[in-house]
């Protein structure tokens, strides 16, 4: 099982390395969005910075994760069907999307730091929160992109399906990261535990429900 996941994960990685246009596409998306922000406001207040940062993360996530399931054609789905168990398939995708989103979150944090300054006091702590947030976003949107792909819809429906569901987690994230802006960061252990709990729930639900999506 672990080996199958690893193989499928390597396949996704290899595909990404061979077709780098999508990776660079997202990078360019991050950069141009940030540049627009940089030109439209100078030194935003911490609260504005926070809101902008997480909303941008949300859109990056939709762009980065959406194509995970949508790039696979119908024929290829059938081919995978003969090769792999749906649970290994979806876990490999989750792993890959989480890695992708972690990289993207890291890059966008660096760019935000360069262009729009840093309201947070402890860089490493904040980095951890950003990575956690990126992973949470990518988990939810990975599953929803599978739903959207199976409904034969484009990325637009992903936003409709995903935004209301992600909102509670987004509010939690905003809360956690806003706590990092003071000299004395507030204690966020409970909120982080809640985030991790929700992530666990999402993974569990994905493994339970994905086999039903997978069947034709």
């Amino acid at each position, binding site marked *: 099982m672990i080996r199958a996941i690893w193989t499928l994960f390597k396949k996704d990685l290899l595909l990404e390395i061979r077709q780098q246009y999508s990776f660079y596409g997202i990078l360019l998306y991050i950069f141009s969005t940030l540049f627009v922000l940089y030109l439209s406001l100078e030194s935003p207040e911490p609260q504005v910075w926070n809101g902008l940062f997480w909303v941008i993360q949300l859109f990056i996530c939709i762009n980065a994760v959406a194509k995970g399931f949508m790039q696979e054609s119908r024929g290829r789905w059938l081919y995978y069907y003969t090769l792999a168990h749906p649970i290994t398939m979806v876990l490999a995708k989750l792993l890959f999307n989480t890695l992708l989103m972690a990289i993207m979150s890291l890059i966008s944090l660096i760019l935000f730091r360069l262009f729009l300054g840093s309201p947070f006091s402890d860089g490493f702590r904040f980095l951890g929160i950003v990575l956690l947030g990126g992973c949470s976003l990518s988990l939810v949107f990975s*599953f929803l992109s599978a739903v959207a792909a199976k409904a034969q819809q484009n990325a637009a429906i992903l936003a*409709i399906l995903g935004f209301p569901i992600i909102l509670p987690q987004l509010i939690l994230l905003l*809360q956690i990261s806003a706590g990092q802006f003071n000299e004395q960061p507030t204690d966020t252990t409970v909120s982080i535990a809640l985030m991790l709990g929700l992530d666990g729930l999402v993974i569990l639900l994905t493994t339970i429900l994905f086999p*039903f999506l997978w*069947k034709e």
Partner: protein
Amino acid sequence: MSNAPRYMYRSWWKITGILLLIYTFTAGLLGSVPKLPLLQETIRNLYFHVCMWFGMMILFTVSVVQAILYLRKMDRKHDLASRHYAGTGILFGLLGYSTGSIWAAYTWADPNVPFAESFSTIARDPKLIGAAISLLVYFAYLVLRDSIADIDRRARISAVYNIFAYVILFPAIWILPRVLESLHPGQDGNPALDVKNDISPSMRMVFYPAVIGWTLLGVWISTIRIRIELLNEQKRTT
């Protein structure tokens, strides 16, 4: 396929629902209520506003149970039931949202300011955020459903989304009030209000029947819509 489940044809629960609602309206509007500062007579809205939320949650729960049953048995009847219970749940949610925000405009905000002016400050309350999120999720469910042409695929995918959304949503709505500040009764992570401590005994005598009555009305509306759908299908096939 054409026959709806037996309970849908029975009339005893429909009559019970109507009697309970008649009782709710007479006892709710004429009965004695505690005179509380700020709330005054608006407290009677409890029998309508809060019941809408209870009804909505019950209907959404029925909808998700039907979705699970559909995935287990692959029977179209469960899919139709899931769809229509969710639809009635949305109706109840919209009514709950509007009765609640008007109520809040006269109790939390300055009653002399028009409702439209104070709405933007009220809507920031975690309870209203939670309510808005759950309505958005179920609207998204309807959009997703209608976007798929193939009947079986539509049933399967929307059932999966229904279950996923429900399981993510309800803990989240329960968590939100813990991390945000609220004016709404039922603090400390309670999703709506603490029935035992927040409501006086005389009001509870109306409140519980009201919840049951409104919920039965919701079930009745849903079953009528399911039966119409089944009859339409029968007409198309014969």
